[in-house]
């Protein structure tokens, strides 16, 4: 697959986005019934709690309690894993997770981050399956919060739905059927799915080799679809059993990207303003495509120092799987960070500086479609900030979809926006000056700095991809990145939910001559620059000292 493959992928992605956006809208508004018996059965188990309409505060409390429960149960499962059945086989692997690591893993899978300071091979199948359940639940949890915000924006209402009913609908109508279909496709493409344990083979040289297997196809489907990214194996999507060929590679990319893209159009259906969705999707798609181009060109151009030393003109190949191709790698690297999946099919630490820096930028922006729900909330947060900034610039009333943006909304949007850079830059700064952080950095200079900032950015953006080159399975990194993941996911969501409560109580003001049109392309330009200036410039000094400096040094002909 080359550039043409990338273009075909983009066409398919956007062709799927509109119908899927309508499907999500219908699913969450209770208009779908084709899996009614399953939905009804689960709702009956939950009981009357799933029937009451909830205010934003009640919705948030149910949400946060459910997340707490998920995290505590996961922690217990991981700590007790050595006593659980379904060991992965002959017992050479099973390594119990200590308290710090279990805290990190539990936070990671609850927050849809899926950062892994462990190898999947070290868990029992039962623990792996349990983590797979969270891979279904955590994206659905993100999705329902975005839906609540949509509802608050488009009408005047006191209640915003029911958390349990929304969660069940998201799981039953969206994640379960699509993941099941994807798992069957992945099985056909050669992924194993078995509890039979590892295969023991005798090599031609006479050695005995253990090849780990497991219920990989089912795991892989929701890993990508739910923008989770936590691998069944340590090598993640570079492992031939997770991603065996170019077809599974492009399927993985499509799975991780199409729901979050569709969600922008779901917003359009809620707002009854498809043009608004097209404007937001268009500007976000432009950012996404620019990122893909940068990664692709950086890989194609390779490292000039190698060209000079060997007299070869070669692409950058270190840390890459040949079977995925240059375009397949560039697209995966871009998609996994734009959509905050975090799966990796290449070793990001080995990529040329710009190809490694771009994923970092995508996670810092956190608005290039993003993860399920969380990304869309960030897009709307920046849209509200843009409305305010643009309104001040041209003297128009700050309104978004007829709702007045006042002091409370802009204060909360600012809080939600500032959480991200603070929880990335503050712990990075600490890790770079204290021995607990510096002692496990494996590279010196600009690259070492990038390794640390990438780790905290990945945690804050709930991405989970690792740059690697940093020993993060230490008490300091396990606990600090764990906390960054929790604050990164929930604090900005808390601010956005409070804003949803405030917006829902407002009546819709009819558009007047003083209203700034938000569904115009001129608004899209302002939105783009606000996102870049506010989102990217905050991180510019860190980027300048990391990948940009490394790139300039490389182009200047020096090693470091």
């Amino acid at each position: 697959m080359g550039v043409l493959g990338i273009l075909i992928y983009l066409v398919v992605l956007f062709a799927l986005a509109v119908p899927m956006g309508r499907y999500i809208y219908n699913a969450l508004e209770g208009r779908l019934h084709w899996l009614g018996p399953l939905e009804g059965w689960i709702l009956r188990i939950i009981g009357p709690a799933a029937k009451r309409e909830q205010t934003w505060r009640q919705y948030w409390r149910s949400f946060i309690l459910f997340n707490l429960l998920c995290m505590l149960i996961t922690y217990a499962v991981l700590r007790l894993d050595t006593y659980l059945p379904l060991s992965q086989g002959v017992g050479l692997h099973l390594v119990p997770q200590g308290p710090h690591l279990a805290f990190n893993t539990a936070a990671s899978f609850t927050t849809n981050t899926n950062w892994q300071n462990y190898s999947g091979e070290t868990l029992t199948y039962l623990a792996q399956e349990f983590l797979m359940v969270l891979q279904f639940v955590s994206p659905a949890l993100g999705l329902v919060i975005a839906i609540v915000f949509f509802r608050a924006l488009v009408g005047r209402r006191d209640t915003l739905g029911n958390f349990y009913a929304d969660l069940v609908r998201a799981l039953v109508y969206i994640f379960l059927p699509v993941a099941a279909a994807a798992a069957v496709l992945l099985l056909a493409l050669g992924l194993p799915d078995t509890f039979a344990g590892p295969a023991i083979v005798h090599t031609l040289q006479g050695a005995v080799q253990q090849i780990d297997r497991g219920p990989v196809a089912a795991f892989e489907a929701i890993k990508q679809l739910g923008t989770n990214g936590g691998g069944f194996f340590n090598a993640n999507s570079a492992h031939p059993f997770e991603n065996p060929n170019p077809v599974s590679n492009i399927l993985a990319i499509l799975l991780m990207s199409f729901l979050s893209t569709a969600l922008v159009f779901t917003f359009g259906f809620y707002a009854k303003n498809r043009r608004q969705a097209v404007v937001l999707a268009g500007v976000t798609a432009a950012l996404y495509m620019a990122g893909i181009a940068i990664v692709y060109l950086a890989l194609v151009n390779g490292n000039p120092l190698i060209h000079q030393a060997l007299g070869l003109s070669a692409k950058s190949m270190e840390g890459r799987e040949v079977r995925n191709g240059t375009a397949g790698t560039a697209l995966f690297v871009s998609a996994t960070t734009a959509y905050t999946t975090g799966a990796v099919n290449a070793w990001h630490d080995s990529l040329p500086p710009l190809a490694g820096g771009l994923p970092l930028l995508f996670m810092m922006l956190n608005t290039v479609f993003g993860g399920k729900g969380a990304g869309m909330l960030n897009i709307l947060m920046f849209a509200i900030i843009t409305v305010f900034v643009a309104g001040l610039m041209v003297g128009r009333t700050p309104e978004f979809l007829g709702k007045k943006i006042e002091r409370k909304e802009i204060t909360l949007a600012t809080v939600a926006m500032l959480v991200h850079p603070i929880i990335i830059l503050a712990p990075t700064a600490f890790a770079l000056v204290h021995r607990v952080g510096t002692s496990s950095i494996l590279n010196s200079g600009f690259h070492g700095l990038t390794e640390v900032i990438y780790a905290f950015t990945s945690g804050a953006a709930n991405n989970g991809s690792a740059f690697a080159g940093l020993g993060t399975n230490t008490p300091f990194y396990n606990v600090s990145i764990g906390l960054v993941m929790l604050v990164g996911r929930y604090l900005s969501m808390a601010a956005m939910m409070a804003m949803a409560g405030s917006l829902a109580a407002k009546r819709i003001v009819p558009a007047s001559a003083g209203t700034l049109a938000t569904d115009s392309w001129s608004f899209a330009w302002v939105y783009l620059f606000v996102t870049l200036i506010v989102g990217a410039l905050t991180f510019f000094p860190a980027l300048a000292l990391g990948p940009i400096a490394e790139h300039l040094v490389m182009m200047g002909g020096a090693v470091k």
Partner: protein
Amino acid sequence: MKGGAKALTDVWMILITITVFAVLDLAASWFGSW
């Protein structure tokens, strides 16, 4: 690490988790009151 110290670490991790979520719940109330 000895058994007692291990148990203490588990207690700490669980306490940190519950505290973080409690603070997040309070944060939403606080944001709502602005």
